[in-house]
């Protein structure tokens, strides 16, 4: 089992927004985020998936990765990303500090 524990920060979310090109203000501007009914800025689903990929296994062997973004991740949240491989099929989980799944149906395949 591989595990990665990450406490999300506004800085990391902003760095991901800049590097990925996804500058949707729901990730950057708390006032805007609240204006569209969110509790504040939230992390990109793709940032969560990027962290899932880190635990999934050797990046060069990664052939498939999928997940459902089930829960919001906000700055200050601590998420534990875990991977368990069996014969090239990887089951992935991501639980926040309250034990809630922030992604579901997360799987990967390795060659």
């Amino acid at each position: 089992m591989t595990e990665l524990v990450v406490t999300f920060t506004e800085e990391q979310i902003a760095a991901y927004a800049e590097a990925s090109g996804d500058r949707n203000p729901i990730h950057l501007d708390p006032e805007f985020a609240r204006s569209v009914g969110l509790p504040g800025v939230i992390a990109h689903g793709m940032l969560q998936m990027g962290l899932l990929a880190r635990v999934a296994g050797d990046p060069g062997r990664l052939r498939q990765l999928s997940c459902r973004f089930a829960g919001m991740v906000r700055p200050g949240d601590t998420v534990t990303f875990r991977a368990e491989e069996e014969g090239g099929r990887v089951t992935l989980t991501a639980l926040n500090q309250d034990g809630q799944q922030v992604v579901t149906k997360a799987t990967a395949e390795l060659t």
Partner: protein
Amino acid sequence: MTGRAYPPVDFTIDAAHVAAFAASLGEDADGGVPPTYAAVYALGATAAQLFDDPEAAVDFDNLLHAEQEFVWERHPLVGETVTSRGRVAKDVERRGMRFITFETDVTAAGEAVCRSRALFVIRSAGS
């Protein structure tokens, strides 16, 4: 909008850009192209066409990325130019929400590299 396809986009994998992306994931910059850099060369390069398409009329302010899948034949290399083609695989409304499945095929020199499938949910569609 189901079936709508967008023109191919060429994207060159740039070393500095890849390094910044890797760093934002807390990875070593010299570890090669992170697999989910596909968020940039596949999804990002083509979803922008959908979001900017007046006829598709995507309410971006209420859009959430609900699901994502990538399938790789291989991972692109720094310096390589890939071609990404996006299309709306499915566009339906249910319970007042709009669900768009957006697929992107990525090739290099005509050979398959990656396929991306994103599900976008747009809350309060039509309101």
